[in-house]
């Protein structure tokens, strides 16, 4: 079942300097209970897109259906009611500094008209859920960034929403805090079966928690699919660059050049594994079956939400035909091979 459906959605801003097409004819379907990531560089239109989902922006044309509601055409009370079923968290947390943690989390419940006693119970539950016990009476100014985002998450979940929207929710946090917040999001997704839409410019975030990903460029969705699939076969140039962010550390290129100088004979190949392939004793099999020497130069395996993804650089030496046969064999094992030496 689809929780969110976008059909030919376009958003054009009329600014003094002319009109800007922030979202350009986007069609998208997001399933109930999945974690869907949207990645793109600054100005790609990600925030505009996510803001269409809770009616903070109205589309210039196209259809926006969230949890069965036509977000483009509802107004007033109905829109406010619909928004209570869509939680949102923000890059800069957007907490009310004049309220304590407890009061901030209670705010959406006040808006929903929940009586005081029930409100207090629910806030206590939420504080447990996000792990902020003991900090109920602190003010936002007394919290760390990670704790502030936990308050943001608790607040967004207060009215038991069906959908959680995350606009760069971890971009203001350090890597360790980012990971703990991402873990919390996965936990919530599993426990509550909540549909999560998150936007980011970091592939790391997509890799860690998303089931599916859409890549956005100049207002358009240029590529989308299962995260592992996109990692395995990125089609667009921009997607390749994002994938490189996580699988190839900065220094790889330098290292490889250095290795090519060090091994003038033979072939250096880059193997890209996905899922089960990453767990086979592939190199051992190759050495056993073919008359080649194989030497692992460098490797990295990243864990995605759906399985492993790895890159391995291997130096192979032996008869030309034998090396070619070995490479063919590797290709048959669902592992992508790229010969590096020849590219030099």
């Amino acid at each position, binding site marked *: 079942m689809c929780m969110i459906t976008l059909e030919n959605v376009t958003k054009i801003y009329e600014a003094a300097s002319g009109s800007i097409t922030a979202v350009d004819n986007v069609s998208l379907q997001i399933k109930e209970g999945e974690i869907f990531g949207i990645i793109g560089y600054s100005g790609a239109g990600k925030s505009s897109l996510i803001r269409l989902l*809770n009616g*903070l922006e109205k589309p210039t044309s196209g259809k926006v259906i969230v949890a069965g509601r036509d977000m483009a055409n509802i107004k007033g009370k109905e*829109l*406010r*009611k*619909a*928004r*209570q079923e*869509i939680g*949102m968290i*923000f890059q*800069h947390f*957007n*907490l*009310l*500094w*004049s*309220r304590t943690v407890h009061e901030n989390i209670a*705010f*959406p419940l*006040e*808006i*929903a008209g929940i009586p005081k006693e029930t409100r207090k119970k629910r806030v206590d539950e939420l504080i447990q859920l996000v792990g902020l016990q003991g900090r109920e009476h602190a*003010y*936002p*100014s007394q919290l760390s960034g990670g704790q502030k985002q936990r308050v943001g998450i608790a*607040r967004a979940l207060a*009215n038991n929403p069906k959908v959680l929207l995350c606009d760069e929710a971890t971009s203001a946090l350090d890597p360790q805090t980012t990971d703990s917040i991402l873990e919390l999001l996965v936990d919530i997704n599993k426990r509550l079966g909540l549909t999560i839409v998150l936007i980011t410019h970091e592939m790391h975030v997509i890799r860690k928690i998303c089931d599916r990903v859409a890549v956005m460029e100049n207002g358009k969705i240029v590529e989308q699919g299962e995260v592992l699939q996109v990692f395995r076969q990125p089609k667009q140039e921009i997607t390749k660059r994002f994938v490189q962010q996580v699988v190839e550390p900065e220094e790889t290129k330098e290292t490889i050049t250095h290795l090519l100088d060090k091994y003038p004979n033979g072939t250096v190949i880059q193997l890209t594994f996905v899922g089960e392939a990453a767990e086979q004793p592939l190199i051992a099999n190759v050495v056993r079956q073919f008359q080649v020497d194989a030497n692992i130069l460098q490797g990295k395996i990243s864990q995605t939400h759906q399985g492993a993804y790895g890159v391995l650089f291997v130096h192979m030496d032996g008869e030309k035909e034998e090396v070619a046969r070995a490479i063919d064999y590797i290709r048959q094992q669902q592992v992508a091979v790229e010969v590096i030496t020849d590219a030099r």
Partner: protein
Amino acid sequence: MLANLLPNVEWDMIWAATVETLYMTGVAVVATFILGTILGLLLFLTSKGNLWENRLANMIIAAIVNIFRSIPFIILIILLIPFTKLLVGTILGANAALPALIIGAAPFYARMVEIALREIDKGVIEAAKAMGASTATIIWKVLLPESLPALVSGITVTAIALVGYTAMAGVVGAGGLGNLAYLEGFQRSHNDVTFVATVLVLVIVFVIQFIGDFVTSKIDKR
């Protein structure tokens, strides 16, 4: 001893004048706070990119605020004489000073309210909208509480200005310490009366400043 130093000071007169000044200032501050907050909210809400964005309404309110803010207070009193007569029935006494005090101070305070509201992070207002808050909820539960320290320090400054205004109004016949200093002190060359009246005005100003600072620091959780 005090009687020797201040031969012309009649303490019951001083006391009555002080009460009048406090009364005029107090009533004017409360009314200015309410009227100025409403005007400031309207200025903010009708401005570009906000909840009730409306260029025409914003221009009209801004024009009214600016005009009344620019008229020197002493001239405002004179201009308002017919209005005051209609409203209060007289142009003498403490109550007669109130219309001019409020109309003079409210636009001044409205600007401070508008600036305070503009300081609020847009993201917080957006978060409230995303939670399904109505405009009334946003005003009462986001805009006013989030800007409260600035509203309080603004009303402190305004209250102090109002003490000065009451003294000016006193010269034109409104009563209070200003009136006393002018009639009893200046016109009859009783410098000791002028001196005591001045000291009392200063004390009132210091007390207002102290209370304002104290309350602001108590409610500011940033």
